[in-house]
Each structure stands twice: as C-alpha cells, then as structure tokens.
C-alpha cells in the first residue's frame, strides 16, 4: 500500500452529506448512506500524487476524533446543509477549532450541500425530504465564514484563493458541482505538496525514485 502524499478532510455536522459527496465523487452514485461511525477514507490517485480523502463522522459523539483526522491535512472541506442554517453556524462553533492541527498552509473550502432541495423549495413543491426549515442559507454567509476563517488562521486574504472560488454549492444527489469541488481542491493541493517535498530535507533515501539525491552542501569544487 502506497503512503498517501497528502490528506484532504471533510468536516461538518451530522447528515450534511459528507459521505454522500464522497461516494458521488468516487463511485458516481448516490446510495442510501448510514451515519458514519468514526471515519472512513479513500485513496485517490491525482496527477502524480496519491491523496487520502477522509470522511469524518459528524455526530457529536465522535467530535473528539476530528483533531487527529485533521492533523497535517493539506485541505479541509467544511460542509454544511443549505437547508439547515444551523449547520453553517456549527462549522464555525464546533469544527473550525479542529483544524488547528492541520498543516500551516492548509486550504479551506466551504461547501453548501443539498442545493437540489433548495431549488425544490423555490418551486414550491418540496418533496417528503424537503426540510421543514425552508429558510435557505445564503452563499454570502458562506463567503463571510471563509473570510473569517482566514482571519482566524491569521492568513492574508491576498495569499489565499479568493472566497468566491472556495465556496461551493453542491448536490450529492444530482452530482451538481461535485466534481468541480473535489477537482478544484485537488488541483490546489498538488503544487502545495510538491513545494513541501522540495523544501523538506531528505530524511530517507527513496530508492524508488529515479532522481539523484540532492546535495545539501556544495562540494569543494563548483
């Protein structure tokens, strides 16, 4: 088994659709899912890298595990349910703190899932699954949260991808924006990982790589 080069973690409250998003992306389908216990992960080859995608459990009971899952993460995808305003509030109150253990330059994406329900609500024919709390979460709220996160992490907005690019509205049910979400994040993670690799002192000799080892000191003759 190959060791993953970077970690991408999905965080968010119970039932916002983290598992469904991952399954839609990796299996191209929308099966019935049960509430995740503990966590699960997928290995995803992406360009030259292997990324591990962690699906965490949103239930309060497993909240304590989040910090460990986030440790060293290259990207965190904060997920809320557009039909549940509370799920966006929770991102800030409960989940943001878990990302303290993530990589210093960790990327953030904020994802409002289940937009298919919102559209139904608009047309006024909410199905049996339509949320009773029909007030939608506005995209601006997500953008505001994104900016707040950058401040919390003490990152300069100029150095980070713009909020407009990192706030998504998706539907795991229809597949809307799901590929876009993951692929945008992955594509941003790749250069980060490559840069980290270049900066890291070579601790172990990787006999599988073709590259000659880098000289850390210059030799006597140049």
């Amino acid at each position: 088994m190959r060791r993953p080069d970077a970690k991408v973690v999905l965080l968010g409250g119970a039932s916002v659709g983290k598992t469904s998003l991952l399954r839609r992306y990796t299996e191209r389908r929308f099966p019935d899912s049960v509430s995740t216990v503990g966590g699960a992960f997928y290995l995803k080859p992406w360009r030259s890298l292997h990324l591990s995608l962690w699906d965490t459990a949103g239930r309060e009971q497993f909240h304590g595990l989040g910090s460990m899952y986030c440790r060293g993460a290259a990207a965190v995808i904060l997920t809320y349910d557009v039909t549940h305003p509370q799920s966006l509030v929770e991102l800030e109150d409960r989940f943001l703190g878990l990302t303290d253990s993530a990589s210093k330059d960790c990327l953030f994406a904020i994802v409002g899932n289940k937009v298919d329900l919102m559209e139904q609500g608009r047309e006024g024919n909410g199905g049996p699954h339509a949320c009773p709390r029909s007030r939608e979460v506005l995209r601006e709220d997500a953008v505001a949260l994104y900016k707040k996160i950058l401040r919390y992490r003490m990152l300069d907005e100029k150095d980070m991808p713009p909020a407009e690019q990192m706030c998504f509205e998706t539907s795991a049910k229809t597949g809307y924006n799901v590929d876009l979400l993951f692929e945008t994040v992955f594509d941003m993670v790749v250069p980060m990982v490559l840069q980290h690799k270049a900066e890291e002192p070579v601790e172990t000799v990787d006999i599988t790589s073709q590259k000659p080892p880098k000289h850390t000191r210059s030799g006597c003759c140049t």
Partner: protein
Amino acid sequence: MMSIKAFTLVSAVERELLMGDKERVNIECVECCGRNLYVGTSDGFVYHFLLEEKPLPTGTAAFTATRQLHRHLGFRKPVSELRAASALDRLLVLCDSCISLVGMRSLEPVPSGARIKGASTFALNENPVGGDPFCVEVCILSVKRRTIQVFLVYEDRVQIVKEVSTPEQPLAVAVDGHFLCLALSTQYIILNYSTGLSQDLFPYCSEEKRPIVKRIGRQEFLLAGPGGLGMFATVAGISQRAPVHWSENVIGAAVCFPYVLALDSEFITVHSMLDQQQKQTLPFREGHILQDFEGRVIVATSKGVYILVPLPLEKQIQDLLASRRVEEALVLAKGARRNIPKEKFQVMYRRILQQAGFIQFAQLQFLEAKELFRSGQLDVRELISLHPFLLPTSSSFTRSHPPLHEYADLNQLTQGDQEKMAKCKRFLMSYLSEVRSTEVANGYKEDIDTALLKLYAEADHDSLLDLLVTENFCLLTDSVAWLEKHRKYFALGLLYHYNNQDATAVQLWVNIVNGDIQDSTRADLYEYIVDFLACCSDQQLVWAYADWVLQRSEEVGVQVFTKRPLDEQQNIFNPDDVISCLKKYPRALARYLEHLVVDRNVQKEEYHTHLAVLYLEEVLRQRAASGGADPTATETQTKLRRLLQKSDLYRVHFLIERIQGAGLPVERAILHGKLGEHEQALRVLVHELGDTAAAEDYCLWSSEGQDTPCRQHLFHTLLAMYLQAGPAAPTLTVAAVDLLNRHATDFDAAQVLQLLPGSWSVQLLSPFLTGAMRGTVHARRTAQVALGLARSENLLYAADKMKLRGSAIWLSDQKLCQLCQHPFSEPAFVRYPNGGLVHPHCAANRQKAPSSPSPGSRT
C-alpha cells in the same frame, strides 16, 4: 454482515491442569514466548507449560500443553503481569507493584535480587532505539502520581534511564522507539520520552471505560476510542487507517495480520484492517484476557487458556471465493503481499484473479471477468473448455488442478438457461476475437481459432467468413465436422480453400448452387464460383467446372476465361483449347473471341474471321426471327460492322461469299472497300441502299490514315457516280451539291469544275467554291512560305561554302607537306577541310594506304 472463518478457537490449557479443584483461584495474566506458555494466578503462582502444536488437515491445529514447573513468588497478591525477555532468558513478573526477574525455565528469582519497585503496569519496547542486545527496555507507570519511568533490564540488574511526568494520571502504555502511547485519564497522547514533547490524539472518558493501548506494528498503535471504535494512530499522531467498529465494552484487543481482534464480555470479533469490515464473530463468555504474542493470539477466561488459530490466508481467500466475495478476497490477497515471498505470491495472486474472474463470469459480470482474466493471465483454454466441444479433439489441454471453478461446463453453470448460455457464448466470442492476435494466444492459436470458428458457426455470426478469409489457425478436421453439422457449407468451402483444397471447395459450392445441399449465405454464389475460377491458377479445376458454369449462363460462365488476372493470361490457357471447349456455347464463344480480338488485340486471322462469321450468323438469325429487314442496326450488327471496318485480318472473300444475297448492303460495301473495290462499294451504298450519308461516311473512314490523293479519288468517284445519274435522279444531284459543299477541300476543284453541268448556279455551289478557293489559296501560300524557307536555307549553305573558300593560302619554301614533311616544290597542293596542306601525290597515296596517319590528327 457476511462472515468469514479467519480463526478457530482451540483450548490450550484446561482448568484441571492449572489449579485442579482450587475453586477461588483465577487466571490473572498469560505470556507466550515460542513454545513457552506462562500463566500468572490470583494466588501468586506462575505456571510454566510447553505447547505442542499439531496441524490438522482442516487448516487449523490442535494444542496440548504439558505442565512444567510452577512457583509461588512469595506475595499474597495476585500475579498481575508477565513478560518474557527471551534474549536474557528472563521472565518479568509484576506482582504487588514490583517487577521481579526470574529464570524462564527455573522460575527462580535472579540471585542478585534485581527488581523494579513501584510499578502499576509496564510495557516492553519491541522497537528499542538503543542497539544493546543484552538488555530490554521496560517502561513502567509508576505508583507515584503522574510519573513514567524507563528502565534498561539486564540479565541480573536493572537501570533507570528516564523519568518523565505527565499532565494527567496515565492508565495504560505502549512503547515504540522513543514514543510512548499513553492513555491518560481523559485522553490518549503520544509522548516522546527523549524530547518530552507530546501530542494529543483524542479525548475519551476513563470513568466510562477501560482504555486500550496496543502497539500493532512499527510506529503504529491501536486505541479504544469513543462509540466502540478501534482507532489507529501513528507516532506522528495521525491516523492512516479508518477505524474499526467494535462494541462499546471491549476489554482487550489483539492484532494478527490482516485482522484486529477484540474481546468483550460475550464475543470475540474479528475486523479486517484492509477494509475495516467485521469478518468473524466467535461467541466467548467470561473472557478477560486477549493478547497476541509474536503472531499467536491467546484468549483466556479466569479458568482456562485458549488459542485463536488463524486459518492460512490462502484458505481464507479460497473460502471467500467459494462464497463469491471476490472483492474481499482480492483485498485480502493484495494485503498478504508483504507477508508472502514474491514468487509464491505472484503465482497465488494470479490464480486468485483467475478464480475471481470465473466467479464474475458465472454471474455474467463479463466486464469485470474480462479484466480479471486479463490481469490474471488466464490460459484462455480454461474458458474455452467450459463450453462443451469447443476445444479441438486434438488439443492437449487439461484444466488446471486444483480447478479454478466448480463448473463442469456451461450447461451446469447456466443451469440450462438458454439466454444466459447465449450471453456467455457472446462474451467468449468477443474475448477470443480480442485475444487471438495478442501474446495471450501464443502456443495455442489453433485451439482459439477453432473455438472461435465453432462459436461463429453456431451463432450464425458474420465474422465466420472474415475469420476464414484472413490468416487463421482453424484445425481442419474439427472445423469441417462442425461446419457440416451447422450447414455452413459456404464457409466450409472457404476453409477448404484456405487449406489448399480448392477442388473440394468448388465442388461444395457447386453442390449448393445445384441445390443438393442448403446454405443461403450467398445469393450470388454462382457468380462467386465464376470469379473464384477466374482467379484460380489450377487449370485442371477450371476445365473441370467449365461446362458447369457455361451451362448455367454462357455470358457469365465464360468469365472464367475472360476475367482472368492480367499477369497470368498469356501462359495458362491456350485459346484454341478454350475455343474448342466453347464450341457448344456460341454466345460464350463470341464473347471469348471478342475478348481475344478486342480486349487482348490478338492478331490472328482465324479468330477475326471466326468472330466475324459468328456475328454474321447472329445477325442473320436475328433477321430471320424479326421477319425481314429491320432498318435499324442491332447491337450485333454494329459490332459486326466495327469489326469489318477495323480489322484487316479476316478473310474478306470468304465473308463476301457468305454475305451475298443476305441483304446486308452496308456490310457488303465495307467488304468491297477492304478489297479496294471502292467504286463497287459506293455503288452498293448509293444505288442499292440509297443511303448517300453512308456513302459519304464510307469515303471518310476508308480513307482514314491514307494520303490526300487517295481520299480525293474516293470523293471524285462518288461525285462522278452522283452526276452520272443526271437530272433523272434529282436526289443524287442534291447529294452531289451537298457533298461538294460539305467536303470542299477533299476535291480537286479544277477537276470538279470540268465535271459540273453548266446549268448549276454559283450560288448553289458557293460553299464549295469558297472552300475550294480558300483551300487553293492556302495551299499556294503554304507552298510560297515553304519555298521561301528553302531558299533562305540554301543561302545559308552558300554562305558557309563561301566562307570556307574565302581566305588565300600562302605557299612558300617554309611550308612542309603534312604527310611527307617535305617542302612544296610545285604550286599544286591539296588542302584538307581542317586547313592542312599536303602534296597531291601524298594525298593520293594516303587514300590508297588507309593505315597511314590522318593529317587531321597531327595538329
């Protein structure tokens, strides 16, 4: 949840063997090291057993334990932990907060009395950083609050190397390198005892449940997490595997690759680390110890010790395959890669892929099956052999043993369901056609192609023909029988042809056309046979079927002779043989002669005459049939005329005789013309046929390629004929005028003027006169130009001559004859065109003696 049998539970030490009838004594701890099994009891005893393992054919094993020494350690307290340090031949015994060292066999405390005091629990470092082989690193949780100590333990002494304090009271510990994995009272942490740095893992509640901290391999631990999770964490504080889901009240955990085992009050559960799924549940009551020792998993109640014997991985994989759990089997097999030598693994893994392929195949999951067969490098004959009768009888193939699947054949696999059977066959067809040209086919191309042929034939598939007309390795005898059985006679013919048995092939096809056998593959089979024979280089064969093809259709049949490939034509068939063969088939014969005369341009009188006669006969026949003279020329008649006009080879007299009185004036005129009897020819046309246009035409074509006088002669003859008739025949007069006006330049105008009656007006003849005039003027001018050019040419030559003669020649005493090298004594000399001067006699001599050197060469 689907289960798998990964472990069997067998008894190791019976209660009687341990403590007989001492009711209140319990097992507190166990240790196993190689064949040595130690048991610590609540009444302060350590028991030593030797384990004897007897493998059983079912893949499990039976154990018998023989009791060795047992010793009381002198405390009134229970023995709470035991650890063997085999390198030191010491057993570490924790009893009453004190770790004593005793001999592994003797169970005697070391004479030095070395011991570690004040330990509530301890762990051995199985991955120590220091390389000293004569000591082991022991980490203890001290009875002192929030203190951990690290000791080095030697054969008969102990040495403390580190003491660290923790933020909360530690409850359990495991060690790897410098890293301690600790369960504190509210959370798990990783602590580097060398640097003192710590890393939080995750919180839990020690009041609700007992923590579990278990090293499972290099730098990785297994911890009991919230909600009954078994969490994995590395020394870096991250999780590289998804958690396994246990019950809430797990007491102990162990690892035996690729499984994680957990014990609760009622069950032992087995989860796979590869896919996190629960794989097995064994009921086990009152268990309180579950531990693994170098791969051996031991579970104990307070009264007895049991061993969980893992089934060999291969057996587990086979069990999974047997219950069609392909995905899991493959995950397990892949996971075993590290634990099995490469060569052995590859053989095993390939076989598993193949087996998995057959399982998918049996479920009609063909895409998956194909991929598995491909990556498992399946011998395709395994697949072919599932289909009854597909492998050639001569094939040396036998199915691999043990078998890759349980099916005798497709009938059994599909349980006779025809639709499924057809799907399987379609898959096989596409699979074989894909692999037949790849290296997978090497070594058994015959088997593959023959099988493919059989499938195509059976399914009435178009590709059957494609297979047979391109390179293939179909075995003849097998294929013949199969094609006959399925009445694919046309294809059978192709097969014979491919095997150089053209005669058999053609006979078969002829039988189809004759209706002796039925095969509707080709509606145009007759034409196909003709084409085939036309290209067939076997003369014998063509002769053999010539009559047959001609009898069906003379026009088409003759193509076996006329449509032969160009390069071969000259040598293979003698035209005379063909002609004599075609005697019975006049239309075929005509077609063949046409082919010789027109297409191949053979210059032989016989063929030309013969063809002309045949045309003539046909024309006469047609006339007789249509009952009289049909004014419009039939196709044959046109052909006849063309032949008579174009060819100079046929026997004219012979034909004139045949044509006499047949009422074919045009043809007769042509024949007269061929004999040079133009007047007669024209008379026929003008007087008999009364067709002045034909007469005019005659003048044109029969003077084609001849000089002007000849043409003029013809036109004059015709004109004379028109004029002769005089005013009595006004049509001819008109014809005469038209002739003159249309062909002004083909007449000698002066001569014509003599002939014309004086009564004709100039107006009438103006086109002729203008034309003639223009012609004459043109001729004169052309002549003048030619004359001028000739004159100027003449002048040029004259000028050249003058130049050559122009300069004077000085003759003196100094000038020598170029031939004899003597001076000139007289004024007479000879000069060569290059300027050389010689004596006249020398020149004369030289002409007589050609060997003398030429003066020209001596300059």
